[in-house]
């Protein structure tokens, strides 16, 4: 009998006894490999999901995955040791939950950013309108041949327009701060990947910030005699506030919107902010100095918080000493009143908001000057001669009475 015939015989015999023909035979090894591959694929897909809707769909896939392999629970327990089938499914569900949470935050953040970008765009238009209005008013004032009353009306409108514009800038930077100040490093990193390429140059917050800064520099450089010290104080405060906000969120904004030009944006905005700060500071101190001169308050030169404080302190102390030297005359009370009107009426009242916000004088400096002023007031107050006169009259009466009694 040939070998092939024998083998056929053996196989036929086996068919009848030793092996079974089964439908859809599976290899355990293949099942575990399929499980591992699908598990890895799902894990990767969950970690790279870019929307909450995608994670929701993946959660359904995880359910199906669990259903598909749950019958091989025991086999997978052996294959995945020390992990179990349930451990892996739970891990996928936890990953999906974490991804959904993260994406919800980012989607919410994206909505806020998108809304802010639209806001910024409308702010820019609004600021531009306000600038145009202020400029046309300024030119109208410069060329006006109207009566003094009408001119005064124009000046007031111009000043109101400038104030409105500065308030608007504060609103813009507050919106920026609210949106970006609480961003986690992870969110900044995510946003820098999604935003830097998507925002147009026109709507780029860095562009808008820079144009606001540049417009303010131009405004301050224009020799504008119609603005008052109060206007310059307000501009100085706006600049300080802008600086503060940039220090808080500038790095994040550069990361998110700077793209490949981060260092260029950083240097441009920082340089412009520095120029704006110098102009705002110079104009404000110069205006304050001019105002005091007009009010006949002669202070030493000042151009910052410290020198301004020292000038006022020295002035008050000097005036106090001068008052002491006039023991027999009425003190320099008029000078005191003049200064007190400036101090109490302007620094502590009309301008107090800007003085404090802009750190023109700190609270402790104001308090210290207050004490000096009290001493000056005491020294400068007109002295009363009523008591010495009454004393003299009393002495004369007593002497008269003594003489009268002695004669009797």
């Amino acid at each position: 009998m040939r070998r092939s015939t024998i083998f056929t015989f053996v196989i036929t015999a086996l068919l009848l006894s030793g092996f079974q023909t089964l439908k859809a035979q599976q290899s355990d090894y293949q099942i575990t490999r399929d499980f591992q591959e699908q598990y890895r694929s799902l894990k990767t897909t969950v970690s790279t999901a870019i929307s909450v809707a995608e994670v929701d769909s993946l959660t359904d896939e995880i359910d199906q995955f669990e259903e598909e392999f749950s019958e091989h629970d025991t086999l997978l327990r052996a294959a995945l040791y020390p992990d179990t089938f349930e451990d892996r499914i739970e891990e996928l569900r936890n990953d999906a939950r974490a991804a959904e949470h993260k994406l919800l935050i980012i989607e919410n953040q994206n909505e806020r950013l998108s809304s802010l970008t639209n806001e910024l765009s409308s702010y820019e238009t609004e600021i531009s309108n306000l600038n145009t209005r202020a400029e046309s008013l300024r030119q109208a004032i410069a060329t006006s041949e109207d009566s003094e009353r009408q001119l005064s009306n124009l000046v007031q409108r111009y000043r109101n327009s400038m104030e409105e514009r500065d308030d608007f800038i504060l609103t813009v930077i507050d919106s920026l701060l609210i949106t970006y100040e609480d961003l986690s490093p992870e969110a900044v990193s995510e946003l820098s990947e999604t935003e830097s390429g998507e925002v147009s140059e026109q709507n780029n917050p860095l562009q808008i910030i820079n144009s606001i800064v540049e417009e303010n520099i131009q405004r301050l450089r224009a020799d504008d005699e119609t603005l008052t010290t109060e206007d310059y104080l307000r501009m100085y405060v706006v600049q300080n506030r802008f600086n503060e906000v940039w220090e808080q969120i500038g790095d994040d904004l550069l990361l998110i919107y700077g793209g490949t030009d981060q260092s260029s944006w950083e240097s441009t905005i920082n340089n412009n902010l520095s120029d704006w700060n110098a102009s705002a500071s110079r104009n404000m101190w110069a205006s304050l100095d001019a105002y005091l001169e007009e009010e006949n308050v002669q202070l030493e030169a000042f151009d910052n918080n410290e020198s301004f404080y020292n000038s006022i302190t020295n002035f008050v102390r000097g005036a106090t000493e001068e008052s002491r030297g006039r023991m027999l005359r009425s003190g320099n009370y008029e000078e005191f009143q003049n200064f007190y009107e400036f101090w109490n009426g302007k620094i502590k009242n009309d301008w107090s908001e800007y003085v404090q916000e802009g750190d023109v004088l700190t609270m402790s400096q104001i308090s210290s000057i207050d004490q000096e002023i009290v001493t000056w007031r005491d020294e400068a107050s007109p002295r009363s001669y009523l008591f010495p006169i009454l004393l003299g009259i009393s002495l004369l009466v007593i002497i008269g009475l003594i003489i009268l009694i002695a004669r009797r």
Partner: protein
Amino acid sequence: MTFQKVTTTICLFSIIFLGSACKSAFVVENVDYAHQIESVLTPDEDGMVNDLRHGISFNILPLQLQEFGSDSQVEIDEVRMIRNSQGFYFITANQFNNVYVMEPGQGELKLKTKIEVSEEGLSSPAFNLRNSLVQLVELDKERVFSLTENGIQDVNEEEQL
């Protein structure tokens, strides 16, 4: 045989019996060596396969030589191996006609049984473990052989198990 010789012989046997009784090995019984899932191993260029999960490595070339002879140019890309509860390794691969049942020894695997399962060579073999029995599954032909260390398990015998 004299009485003295008989007595001496009895004494010697008694001593040998007592001695062997004293040296009886300490044995843990009912050990299950079974692998729940087969290992699919890829030989390196020297024919070595290494099963890290179960801590065994060996060379596949002797099995290849046994299966195909010295003139064969057949290259094995995957070796499939599983261990039954008695501790025997069942080894086969694509194009093999046989499953090799190997008994582990000191630094060796010794052939216990060579089970012929195909004439034309297996094309998609896989081992499963079912009820402590090794099954060889031919996935493309949807055939299953139940195997023991002695050969293909008879259905009736399997049922008794």
